[in-house]
């Protein structure tokens, strides 16, 4: 919540106070060693769930990240173990029908080139979405927000992220479009949070259009990871970004990326 607001303020400030021109240049940057990259998420919904393994590369590599195809990936919840099988290059999937259990802690193990990489994630309950509604944008005329309403549990510090589907098509198709927040300052209250801005003009919402929101209960670590991801996009230097830094993952032995376990609450709204 607070982060989104701060984000808006900062973006406004940055946008509105500079007249800056830019020009494309060639830049020569040194390359560090390649590292293993993990992108994995399991939820309490039916699958398919899996983990994507790729390699890091030099900064101007300019091609899709190469998949890691020779790893052995297993998941365990302290009791049971599951082997992940590679379906596409770098995509390791859990067996069909696997669904995470809220309250469990899962351990991911990746064996690659004689190194074992471990990550641990706790699947917490998600405070269910109560309802969805439309709210006019305070500044932009004719544009509406999609607002979700839910009761935030008072006894815990909660962190969330959202995926939005418009007519079954994923809107939040890259991580920087994914809204996220926490309950700092509003713990225990009934919250109304704008998560999506409806389009205008030709793409404005038509009656019959369906919009679906999925709310994920993420960990505080993942929340910090998301903040760091946003901070490190694009501009380097300048007065509002501060020195760039690496995004903090939760996998050991220097692997990059994140392994997340989350519970999902989903609600759909039909436009009138």
């Amino acid at each position: 919540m607070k982060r989104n607001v701060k984000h808006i303020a900062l973006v406004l400030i940055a946008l509105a106070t500079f007249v800056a021109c830019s020009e494309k240049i060639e830049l020569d940057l040194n390359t560090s060693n390649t590292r293993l990259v993990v992108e994995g998420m399991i939820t309490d919904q039916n699958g398919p769930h899996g983990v994507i393994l790729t390699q890091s590369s030099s900064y101007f590599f300019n091609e899709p990240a190469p998949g890691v195809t020779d790893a052995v990936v297993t998941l365990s919840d302290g009791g049971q173990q599951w082997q992940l099988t590679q379906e596409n290059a770098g995509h390791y999937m859990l067996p069909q029908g696997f669904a995470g259990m809220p309250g469990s802690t899962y351990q991911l193990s990746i064996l690659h080139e004689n190194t074992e990489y471990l990550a641990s994630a706790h699947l917490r309950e998600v405070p269910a979405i109560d309802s969805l509604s439309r709210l006019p944008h305070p500044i932009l005329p004719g544009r509406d927000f999609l607002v979700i309403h839910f009761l935030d549990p008072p006894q815990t510090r909660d962190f969330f992220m959202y995926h939005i589907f418009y007519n079954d098509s994923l809107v939040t198709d890259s991580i920087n479009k994914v809204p996220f927040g926490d309950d700092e300052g509003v713990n225990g209250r009934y919250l109304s949070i704008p998560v999506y801005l409806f389009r205008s003009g030709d793409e404005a919402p038509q009656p019959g259009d369906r919009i679906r929101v999925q709310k994920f209960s993420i960990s505080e670590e993942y929340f910090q990871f998301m903040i760091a991801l946003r901070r490190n996009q694009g501009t380097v230097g300048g007065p509002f970004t501060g020195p760039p830094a690496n995004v903090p993952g939760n996998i050991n032995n220097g692997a990059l990326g994140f392994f997340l376990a989350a519970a999902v609450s989903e609600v759909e709204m039909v436009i009138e």
Partner: protein
Amino acid sequence: MKKLFLILFIFILAVPVVAEETLPEGLVRGRITDAATGEPLPGATVFARDLRIGAAADPMGYYNIALPSGTHTLEVSFVGYQTRILNIEVRTQYNIDIALEPEDQLLKEVVIQDRRPGEHVERTEMGVVRLPSQTIRQVPAFMGEVDILKVIQTLPGVQSAGEGASGFNVRGGGIDQNLILMDEAPIYNASHLMGFFSVFNNDVLKDISLFKGNIPAEYGGRISSLLDVRVKEGDMQQFGGSGGIGSISSRLMLEGPIVKDRISFIAAGRRSYADIFIPLANNPDIIDNRLFFYDLNMKVFARINERNRLNITTYNGRDIFRFGDQSPFTMGWGNTTFALTWNYILHPNWLLDASLVYGGYDYSLRQEGGNTSFLWEAGNNDVGLKTGLSWFPNENHSVKMGFSSFFHRFNPGVFKGLDDDSPFGEIGAEGSDALQHGIFISNEQKMGERWSAEYGLRFSAFQSIGPATVYNFDDNFNYVDSTVYRGGEIYNTWTGLEPRLGLRFSLSGNASLKASYNRNLQYIHLASYSNGGNPLDIWLPSSQMVRPQIANQYAVGYFQNIPLKGQTVESSVELFYKDMQNQIDFKDNAQLMLNPKIEGEFRFGRGWAYGAEFLLRKLEGRLTGWISYTLSRSERQIESINHGNPYVSSFDRTHNLNLVATYQLSQRVSLSATWVYTTGAPVTLPSGRFEYGNQIVPVYTERNAYRLPDYHRLDVGATIRGKQRPDRRFHGEWNLSVYNAYYRKNTWMFDFRPDNTQPGKVDAFKVYLFPIIPAVTYNFFF
């Protein structure tokens, strides 16, 4: 009771008599003033040529010079005024007030002057530059406005924090390490529009002094420099004023007597109409927007009687950004200062000054309209008392002592929803208070013909005072618990001794060697995302975890006057080394805004800087100006940053070369040019990348391992004075200037953007700020 009155009465009567009897033979004192306005002329010099003894007038215009009895010829001079030669007989005359006539051609000469060419060889101080305001007006103005901060950045050892940033770095120190005072009141953010202009309106300035090392013992609180800005007193005799109408901003200054010869005022206002900076023309949704700044200055000066003077200086300025009509978003920030100073001549040898001071800085962001309206405010303010007692026991000593005590209030930022149905709660950091005290004693001493020394000791203390909630962290910067302090409860006391020492040895009439050592403490710190400074910076006090910053600075210098065709060229070389302890940097991905546990984001370590500063100045003749070159290095070593290895600090600029020149083409026309060159700023760039969630994410290994391209630009300007009519008070001049005359696109920062046509491809861009910017201003005086 009656006895007391009697004693007092006799004492008052007796004082003048006592004074004459105890005044040591050979001490000549008085006040140097402007013959036309009655204004004191601080920095004017009195020079006894035969003895090569000189003295400069203090901020109140008083001078004192010790001369053996007999006849002497005194030369009294000040830039912009006709020099007076006086013959005096020292046995009988002890007090001589001298009035100097202003020169007809105020703009005839010089860009920078330390009051008299060649004087820098005689003064003990080093690492100081003084600029009388009228001499700054000749330097090419940035966008038509004269900016003293831009001028000091062309001096050796001083660097701009970045293009457009008016924060500055002195001898490798951070932008928060400069104490900026306007008539003794602190200014926290000296820039408008993120550095395009400074808050100082040159029309009201009397002079400024920048102390790069050798900060006098009466000042403390910042470890790299003191920028002492003095506002001028209004004309005591008649009304007048000046102003300017320009393409970027306009201003008006009025001054005059309230009671002739007794009380005067000066008031000035300035406003920009820099709305041209709004780059939102492409977005049809944005209806109305405004971006401007204003400054208001006022000073009232009262000469109550021969012994008592009072002045009140106040300043208020603000930057305002507003857009949106129905649901406006407003952002504003600015300083407010107030200072009341009393000067009292206790005795011809004793001078007392006391100031009551207020300085505050705040910013706010406000969104109105509907239930998502919010308000985010932060700021800090100081209230305090500063006193000094000056004593001149004999011709070889000039002693000053005093104390100061300030109360600080810090509001790091609170965000809250305004509407009753607001989804926003209240988030932010609680405020806290602190007290800062200082007590000092210093002396300027002449030891024989060749040696002189300036030495002093300052003892400073800082105390945190409740009510406050303090968050405690363990050694790994993890939050442990919090402690609550009651109102008035004092916790966290920091103290320190700050010795200051300067020595001068005269090698000959034309050359001298100087050395200095300074130790400074700093108790308040800037938490800023950027290195150039931005208006949302937060000032924070020292605490259990945040120790005071300490600097030890050592400097040596060689000063020489070189005669050149009857004129003097001043040259100097200064070498410095500064080590700084308890330097603050922030952990990776630090959250500084609205974070009550902000101290957990800090990391601490040390810094050091060293360099050589070269300066050549020509102050006389048709062509005047200077060349300055600084070769320096500034590094930091902070735990957990850059893997704990030393890294180049963000304000390290290896080479910094400045050429400033003014040429008086004719009586009415003068041309000026400034050329600036600095090594590019250090920057952290990625050494790899990975993909996550359809996003390219950079990988960094070292901090500040790369540099932006070198920065250089040329500014040119011309000033054309209107015909001066002797019968008319009103006269004007046109000022034309071009910033960045050969349109160099200096890189402000790098930007990496994904190529939308080719997934996975990232292109590098350089972002540059200022193209060539011409400006026209019509300045008038009456």
